[in-house]
């Protein structure tokens, strides 16, 4: 089965949203998904994209399943005061029936190429500590756990706290 990795297009957003919802459903957190494919389209393919996306697609030769997406990598550019330009990998997902065929690795390869081409010196991401399979996969690729090694914790100021800090009386 031939797989090609290509940049996502506006037309992929319905399918992308489907895969995003698949992940949420698997975690039984579907009600935490607040956006839809229209928002995804505007935010990714409007004048000022807030994210980048690569998709893994079945190659054209497989005519009966042409255009079938098997996975995606959603990421964006950020900045580190230590090293400057970085990539933050938000999601890397391969549909379960297509796993074990090196698609995830192909997606990572392409993300790494994009990162380097843009002058980025680092790629960051978070993994849940209970996700043993993902932890093992990233570790064997050479990723360092900064939470374990350096005590770095991810912290969030949510909607309510933001409004309070903004001083808008809520």
């Amino acid at each position, binding site marked *: 089965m031939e797989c090609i990795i290509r940049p996502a297009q506006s037309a992929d957003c319905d399918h992308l949203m489907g895969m995003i919802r698949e992940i949420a459903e698997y975690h039984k957190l579907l009600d935490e998904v607040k956006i839809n494919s229209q928002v995804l389209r505007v935010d990714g393919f409007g004048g000022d994209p807030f994210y980048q996306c690569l998709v893994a697609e079945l190659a054209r030769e497989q005519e009966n399943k042409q255009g079938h997406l098997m996975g995606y990598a959603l990421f964006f550019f950020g*900045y580190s005061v230590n090293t400057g330009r970085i990539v933050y990998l938000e999601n890397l997902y391969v549909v379960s029936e297509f796993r074990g065929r090196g698609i995830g690795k192909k997606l990572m390869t392409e993300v790494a190429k994009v990162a*380097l081409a843009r002058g980025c010196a680092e790629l960051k991401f978070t993994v849940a500590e209970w996700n043993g399979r993902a932890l093992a996969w990233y570790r064997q690729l*050479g990723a360092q756990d*900064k*939470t374990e090694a350096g005590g*770095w*914790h991810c912290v969030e100021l949510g909607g309510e706290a933001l409004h309070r*800090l*903004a001083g808008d009386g809520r």
Partner: protein
Amino acid sequence: MSCFRIRPAEPQDCPEILRLIKYSVKTATIDETSNSNLFIRQELAAYENMPNAVKLTEKDLLEDGFGEHPFYHCLIAEVPKEGQTGSSCIVGYAMYYFTYDPWIGKLLYLEDFYVMEPYRGLGIGSEILKRLSQIAIKTNCSCMHFLVVIWNKPSIEYYVRRGALDLSTEEGWHLFRFDKENLLRMASGE
């Protein structure tokens, strides 16, 4: 009487931003390694050679923050220079950028936030956080994310007091990193 001004950074602020970044990273390095056997306090003087040393230059900051597609945004805190009307000096800053969560959309990510020690306790930090929150709300961000070293208790308390949630402790999220060497290896398809 303390008076200060918070404003968006401008290209000519880059040398001062770099100065503050270096102070800030030095402090963060102490926090990160203070729990490690490897840290030797005398090496503060040789901090430039530490693994966490700042590799950024003024040119990087200029290109990356004030080009066509900025990688970051900055708020600056300045106070009037003593005895020099119309002149001011930069005493704090916050560096942020926008990130994306496929479940909730846009987020504001706070990369760094530093106020020089002599100027703390004047409300500069609170005012910067207020402005950041306003920016987040105006740009339709669901929340603000950032990283804190868990051993930096004053920092943790500062944020928790303001309603922050430690996602690593509460939900088990670990931050991972691929450095440049890894990226090169992955890009070659190894």
